[in-house]
């Protein structure tokens, strides 16, 4: 429409160039709405990002600079000494392997089990299924923190004390996961199910062949949620594990916070290290989660 220059090889984003050259008049209406919306969005983003930014920048300061006035946002002579000190002060590499192992196994189990349950709750109409749904909702009413003592006794009676199984198994059933899959499968039209039934597909193969593949966005979302929950679990592993070789990262951090005089330099370093895996996992998968078209392939 507008006469643009001959596309230069540098111009990687021709759309942008066109937008810039577009005559002002028709844009101004959009612009009037774009400016406040964008400004508000970025003010909020700065508010939300600042605490983490301040935390990470502080962790790069040498211990002597942490409390020196005037406070500066950017460290004058950045150092990684806090990280190294934190890494050495506790058996952090072991904690990392332990936590990763627990997270991955629990996540796989949670996604599989929640998908099955959510599908059954959404697509079958039964009195006892409704009852079980209420039961699952009830698990959110009585969180693990509330039932620490009796849960501890149960897991100990099952012979799972001081084992990773004792951390993994009680964490597999999550109401949120079942809820998410149920809500998703409710949006899947029953006609799809009926059509497959008319074609003679068996119930379980309908589930495996049709329903599981279309629920992939939810699976990825729940996988990230679950990984995050388990990575950040603190109280239950602390109660369950006795052997320092089996400790998780959160217990490692808490041992620093729990000290009489908090060593902020080490604490900041350890906290930032513990944040890294989750942020990496999230940044790798965020495309799938954030832009997941939850209604994939099922328009109206």
């Amino acid at each position, binding site marked *: 429409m507008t006469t643009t220059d001959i596309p230069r090889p540098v111009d990687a984003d021709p759309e942008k160039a066109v937008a810039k050259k577009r005559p002002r008049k028709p844009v101004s209406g959009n612009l009037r*709405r*774009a400016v406040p*919306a*964008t400004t508000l*969005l*970025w003010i*909020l*983003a700065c508010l*939300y*990002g600042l*605490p*983490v930014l*301040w*935390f990470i920048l502080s962790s790069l300061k040498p211990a002597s600079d942490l*409390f020196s*006035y*005037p*406070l500066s946002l950017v460290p004058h002579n950045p150092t990684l000494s806090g990280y190294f000190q934190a890494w050495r002060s506790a058996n952090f590499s072991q904690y990392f392997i332990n936590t990763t192992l627990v997270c991955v196994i629990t996540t796989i189990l949670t996604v599989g*089990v929640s998908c*099955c*349950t959510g*599908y*059954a709750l959404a697509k*079958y109409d*039964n009195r006892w299924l409704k009852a*079980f749904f209420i*039961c699952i*909702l*009830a698990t*959110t*009413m*009585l969180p693990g*923190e*509330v*039932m620490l*003592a*009796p*849960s501890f006794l149960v897991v100990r009676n*099952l012979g799972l004390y001081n084992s990773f199984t004792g951390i993994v198994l*009680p964490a*597999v*059933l999550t109401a949120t996961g079942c809820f998410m899959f149920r*809500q998703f499968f409710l949006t899947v039209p029953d006609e799809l199910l009926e059509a497959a039934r008319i074609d003679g597909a068996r119930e*379980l193969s309908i*589930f495996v062949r049709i329903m599981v593949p279309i629920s992939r966005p939810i699976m990825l979302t729940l996988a990230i949620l679950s990984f*995050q929950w388990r*990575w*950040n679990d*603190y109280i239950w592993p602390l109660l369950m594990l006795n052997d320092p070789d089996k400790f998780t990262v*959160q217990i490692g951090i808490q041992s620093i*916070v729990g000290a009489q005089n908090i060593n902020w330099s080490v604490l*900041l370093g350890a*906290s930032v290290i*513990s*944040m890294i895996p989750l*942020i990496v996992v*999230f940044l790798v998968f*965020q495309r799938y989660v*954030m832009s*997941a078209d939850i209604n994939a392939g099922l328009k109206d």
Partner: protein
Amino acid sequence: MTKRASDVSASPPSPSRRRSKYTLAPLVLIAANVVLFSLFFVWPAVIGLVYSFTNYTGVGAFQFIGLENYHNLIGDSTFYNALTRTLLYAVLFVPLNFGASLLIANLLVSKHAKGGTVARVIFFIPWLLSPIVVGVLWRWLFGENFGLVNYIIEQFGGGAVPWQSNADLSLLVVVMAASWTWTGFSMLLFIAAIKNVPVSYYEAASLDGAGPWRQFFSITLPSIAPTSFIVILLNTINAMKEYPVFVALNNGGPGSSNNLLVQYIYETGFKRGQIGYASAASFVLMIILMAVAIIQLIVNRRVENR
């Protein structure tokens, strides 16, 4: 060929077979969760309920003392303090989180706001942090003598604000920290819901001359009602059982003024070894959470049927 045709015509009209088929499939699908549910939920819940009628201290024998634990609980001022503090926290946290995440989700979905992809990541990152790290982070930010916030306030000529030693301010910091953490999650649910609203509704509305506010209140809000219900329910439950952030931020302090219910239960149960008494408190908490859920279910159903 004829045989196959007869098969097809014979199988659908047998309702009893069909029903049994539909019973088996869901049963297989939920089997794993039923087992986990009975092992790690029903069993501890039953044990806990039994303990709540005893004077069990964690070791040795115990006696059944009837309703004495519950009786004592009614007259326990520490318990009342924990209960009112928890309710106050929920009343502050849930609307703040709901409003913030709905606003942000709308901004991110809107095509007018630029840079949404990056902003979305920024909003989501706090949710990835563990409650302990969140507590450490906000403690670092709101430290009375060394925190950035007080430093900025002092630069602008204000006095140091007692974020840690004033009980109400301390609660406020936790409310902010928790809303900050949970926005990413609620936002994600809202974004998915808003994106599922058919675009044709908005196109029709703007043809009829409805402005953005009208579109939001008449189309978006009613369309995402089921998601709003989930967000409010999950956040209320999260608020009622909040514990790690309080501990990491200020150890439920100053003193014990911000000990919420779960911390009260944890401390009576594990630190003082009164497992029976703590179990009774747990069941009071459970009844409150149940009531919240049932009220919200009823409200939700009424809104949806309207």
